[in-house]
């Protein structure tokens, strides 16, 4: 008579194994696209490493590295059209970049710039979300707008494993299911929420099965397998565009680095664990696949990393060239028209009190 959670079995979806071999049919991505995806992944990794250095040099503020999660982010973002809407958390520089936001925007944010969360016109994305799962309700509202406007756009949000514990996650999935909205909830289960391991974050065996609570299809995918991630996201996108409602994707991956530059992961996890995940590195895996396809070799690899270094150099230069903005300017963005009190405060600010 009881529904026993232990009776449920969930199998993880994989396309490429750790050796970079196909375990089932690959999604229909041409070579040009595969190489594009790989380029995104490598440059993202280079950006992440550079950002960590910039932080140590005091040139940016607290930084949340994403190394290890490139396949999850880039594979999913690659499945979207530029006209679709994206709702990131604070760790999604690569996804935002694939979706059209130049990388320097992510850098500006970590510099604490007044304009650090203003994405360029035409990029259909919300800015960095600091409140865990705050974006989960926004993606639902945006998907609702698409239903209302009948514009066939899809809205996708990124959430961490920790974010699934928040009330907003629950409320949003429930709404999206009842209203059959074109929303995709993409969970990067990177095993940790700061110091809390996944096993203490929830009592359910997977995050994918949480969809059952809402009547939403869920899937657990190998998040370090960019082909698998792309494939399941494409299916979720198709379902959304066809008006069939929301989907929940759990991408099983790993955060290689600290939670942020303020964090010391040695306090809560073992080096052995970190090493074991290095075997599953998403970039290595795709490289092996490309090599197997004979469209990649060491020479191209070297050239790409060189290109990456140059690209990042430019990104840093651009970001550091942007005037940081002034407090007085920000007074213009509290309301469309500053209130009399703001105007008065602006004047005292200029006068030094």
């Amino acid at each position, binding site marked *: 008579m009881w529904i026993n959670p232990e009776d449920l079995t969930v199998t993880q979806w994989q396309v490429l194994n750790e050796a970079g071999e196909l375990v089932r049919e690959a999604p229909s991505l041409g070579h040009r696209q595969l190489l594009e995806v790989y380029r995104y992944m490598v440059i993202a990794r280079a950006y992440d490493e550079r950002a960590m250095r910039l932080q140590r040099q005091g040139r940016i503020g607290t930084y949340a590295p994403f190394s290890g999660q490139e396949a999850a982010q880039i594979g999913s973002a690659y499945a979207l059209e530029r006209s679709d*809407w994206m709702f990131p958390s604070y760790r999604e520089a690569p996804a935002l970049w694939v979706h059209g936001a130049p990388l320097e925007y992510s850098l500006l944010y970590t510099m604490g710039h*007044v*304009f650090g*969360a*203003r*994405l360029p*016109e035409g990029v259909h994305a*919300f*800015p960095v979300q*600091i*409140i865990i799962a*705050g974006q*989960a*309700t*926004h*993606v*639902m*509202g*945006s*998907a*609702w*707008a*698409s239903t*209302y*406007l009948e514009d066939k756009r899809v*809205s996708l949000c990124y959430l961490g494993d920790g974010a699934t514990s928040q*009330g*907003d996650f629950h*409320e*949003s999935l*429930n*709404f999206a299911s*009842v*209203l059959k909205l074109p929303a995709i909830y993409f969970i990067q289960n990177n095993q940790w929420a700061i110091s809390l391991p996944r096993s203490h974050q929830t009592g359910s065996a997977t995050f994918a099965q949480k969809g059952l609570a809402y009547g939403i299809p869920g899937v657990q995918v190998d998040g370090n397998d960019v082909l698998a991630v792309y494939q399941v996201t494409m299916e979720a996108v198709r379902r959304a565009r066809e008006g069939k409602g929301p989907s929940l994707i759990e991408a099983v991956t790993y955060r290689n680095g600290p939670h942020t530059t303020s964090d010391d992961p040695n306090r809560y996890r073992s080096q052995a664990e970190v090493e074991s995940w290095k075997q599953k590195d998403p970039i290595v895996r795709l490289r092996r696949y490309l090599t197997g396809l004979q469209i990649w070799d060491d020479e191209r690899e070297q050239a790409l990393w060189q290109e990456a270094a140059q690209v990042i150099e430019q990104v840093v230069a651009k970001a550091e060239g942007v005037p940081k*903005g002034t407090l007085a300017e*920000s007074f*213009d*963005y*509290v*309301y*469309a028209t500053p*209130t*009399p*009190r703001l105007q008065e405060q602006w004047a005292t600010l200029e006068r030094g009190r």
Partner: protein
Amino acid sequence: MPLMNMVEAINSALRLEMERDPSMLIIGEDVGRAGGVFRVTDGLQAQFGNRRVVDTPLAESAIVGAAVGLAARGLRPVAEVQFLGFIYETMDQMASQAARMRFRTAGRIHLPMVVRSPYGGGVRTPELHSDSLEGLFVHTPGIKVVMPSSPYDAKGLLLSAIRDPDPVLYLEPMRLYRAFKEEVPDGEYTVELGKAKVVAEGDDLTLITWGAAAPVATAAAAEWRDKQGGSVEVIDLRTVAPMDEEAIVRSVAKTGRVLIVHEAVKSGGVGAEVAALVSEKCMLSLLAPILRVTGYDTPYPAFAVEEDWLPNKQRIFKAMQELLSYR
């Protein structure tokens, strides 16, 4: 001009704007089929369909969060929170999200959204159905807070609120929903946000009030004038954020005596901000201490004793007496 009570006036504003603006939609608990627990949205789903008037599941944070997403995409959601006591559930979406999106994105995303909510006491409700919580939002830059006290203002302010490019919290005093009717134009008109109304002119004392407390305070002032002959200027703020400082300063410069009347608990309420403003800007005019007649510093009490808790004529008289006899 037809006579309308406040429920009718609000309903009229919603209807007119739904007709005018196809990007407007109404969302919330029981707003559709049932027409709202106070019938404020009565008939709107019948007229505009369940695509535009949507009964949502029971989750306030998601209602406001959905409004953020809808508004960011160019729609004009008018969301209802069934009673203001439940706004606590939405504080993160209201204060961290809705209020800050324009600021966060330096103007790239703005949110033309309204959150409507009934509030205030005197109608024998269960716990948490009578609280006045405007104070929380006056301390939240990025949100405007509108609190009408009459059918005419309710309609004109709501139309302004819906058309405003920024998030507006629009608070409806339950006790005044059907308390009285007044002439309200059938068609559309707006009352500007951020502008107070001088309800009665006077020279001896400035009584500053808003929302649910305004009729009580206004009646007390009128009776006082009739009985005692003194002349009390009554200012109904109508919008508490932003506040019409000019109207306040102008009046206090004339009268030199200030009484603030509101329903929320005293400590840290909007009355404190009014007093602080006056004590900063009107020092030379002040002839007496600034007094507040408000709810006491307890949670809103059980309804058997709510009338003792609410500001009433007797308490207002005592305070006016004290102010006017102060030398």
